[in-house]
């Protein structure tokens, strides 16, 4: 029994990965838009699990907050507001299936072209790290949430603050352009 649990613990990433794929497949396959959104939600939660199993706690939590929290709710809103009839839904979505097959084949060919060496070639003698000194900094920081905070509040404080003002401006702009009455 203990052995079994350990095996599961070691293969957490693979398990969550397969579950995420299942969710994504359900999202594409299901006929109802609401079911699709639920499949998407499930896939996003599983990807958050993948991040957690890789010890990227911050990214995992952000994934849940942003995707599972924000984007799925947005999708649900849109789906409920648009409210398509079954027949129209069928027309709209099946119109594209021919192009979708072509797109998938193209995507697969591109993926293979780029990752052929990684998947089938000889293993690299050392791990590929884009910036060794950054990786070291991450180790020093101990936890990646700290590394993120270092980025946001020390190195990139000014762009971060400007970005927050940009978001405020976007909000104001939406009101200016959409408010029904003026003066």
């Amino acid at each position, binding site marked *: 029994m203990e052995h079994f649990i350990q095996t599961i613990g070691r293969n957490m990433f693979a398990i969550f990965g397969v579950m995420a794929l299942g969710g994504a497949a359900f999202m594409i396959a299901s006929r109802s838009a609401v079911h699709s959104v639920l499949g998407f939600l499930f896939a996003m939660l599983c990807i958050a699990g993948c991040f957690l199993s890789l010890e990227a706690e911050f990214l995992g939590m952000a994934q849940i907050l942003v995707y599972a929290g924000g984007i799925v709710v947005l999708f649900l809103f849109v789906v409920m507001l648009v409210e398509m009839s079954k027949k129209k839904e069928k027309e709209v979505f099946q119109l594209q299936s021919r192009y979708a097959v072509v797109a998938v084949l193209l995507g697969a060919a591109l993926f293979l072209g780029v990752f052929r060496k990684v998947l089938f070639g000889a293993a690299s003698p050392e791990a590929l790290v*884009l*910036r060794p000194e950054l990786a070291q900094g991450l180790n020093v920081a101990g936890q990646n949430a*700290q590394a993120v905070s*270092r980025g946001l*509040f*020390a*190195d*990139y*404080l*000014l*762009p971060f603050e*400007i*970005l927050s*003002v*940009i978001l*405020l*401006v*976007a909000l*104001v*702009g939406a*009101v*200016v*352009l959409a408010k029904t009455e*003026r*003066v």
Partner: protein
Amino acid sequence: MTGFAQGLLTALLRDTPLITPQLFLMTVATLMLWPGDLFFNRNEKHKWAPITLVILAITAFLVTKVPDGEGFSRMFRMDGLTRGFQMLCILASAGAVTLSVKLLDSLKQQTVEYYALILFSLAGMLFLCGASDLISVYFSIELMAICIYILVAYLRDRATSVEAGMKYFLLGAFSSGILVYGISLVYGAAGGVSTNLVDINQALALTPTTSNLLVYAGVLMVLVGMAFKVAAVPFHMWAPDAYEGAPTPITAFMATAPKAAALAAFLRVFGTGFHGVSSDWVLPLCYIAGASMILGNVAAVRQESMKRLLAYSSIAHVGYMLLGVLSGDPKAGAQAVWLYMLIYIVMNTGAFAVVIYLQGKGEGERIEDFKGLGRKHPVLAFAMMIFLLSLAGIPPLVGFFGKFYLFKLAIEQGYVTLTVIALLTSAVSAYYYLGVVNQMYFKEPEGEAAPMGSGSVFIVALACILVLVGTAFGPWLLDWAGKIFWV
């Protein structure tokens, strides 16, 4: 971890004085939206204009008080270049705000958001003038541009305004994408260690020849992205439509303030960051500058709308100013560009003030509307003639002074062909500017215009006096320009 937090606080306290004007602007603009807007009822919104002018004056005062220095992980730099161009942006914004009052009143479109967005945009420009890192350059450009997209589409009941905003937004987003892709390529080519301009300049000097193509592609894409923002040919397609559709005060704003800020960034990015790899960008920039002068001036000849004419003329003027960016001596180039921009802001705002004065209820921006203005409003026609002659660069008006200084520098730096093109196209520009003068003085007036007396009269008078006597203050102007420098 306390060490980290303490270091953060120390750095913050040290660096915050550098951006007091921007912090002030952003805080006040937010407070204007809420709770400020609650204090004025529907018919009193025009009172926001004088308040905005006071805010701009305080900002200008704060800019003079900011100490020189560099902060925020070397992302923002306060020096002569920053301060000089920040002042230009504030000046241009003040002009636009003054021109807005009566026009928005007559259209019944006064809101607090209009003025707040101008202030937010100005904050972005002030950041952009001092941005010394590719990341902060990009974010400042976005803050500046997003506000202007909204302002262009501000008159949302009017199809032209919405269309202009949409076009400007799409092309602006597209150009931002190119800019940020170029930044990422340069960042990769420079070793992926830093986006600071000084660091990048050093790192690019050490890149192996195998990554030459990467550097070339990156620098060119940054060049294209920036050229979009200043509307230089062949990346100018958005400008005439956006200028024509936008509310006229915003057209005056777009033609001056964001250009000043973007040129400051242009000077700093290419003068500091890409100075070492100038062989990569000098030739393309030469073509861009030459094409802007030629196409801007030639296309302006055929225009029937005054706003479009001024739009094409602003494209041409950007072409002239790019001569300063090309200068091998970045400091002299920056001084010439600053001087030209200062003069351009004064005469351009003056010309737009006349257009707005004549616009009545937002109609009548065709050149034909200027027919017989010399008979109907002699003083106004005289002022308009002064602005147009100055834009054409006819001595002894101050526009000639700026052009002379810029062209002299370009010849000294060995850009003889470009300078000859600049002189020839200036002659072409005199043709269409004089065409308007011809309409004003030698054509019979038609119909009754409904001009509106407003703050624009004040702007017209002030700008006219400045353009007329500006040359006499040449030594002072040169003295001010001498303070434009950076390391």
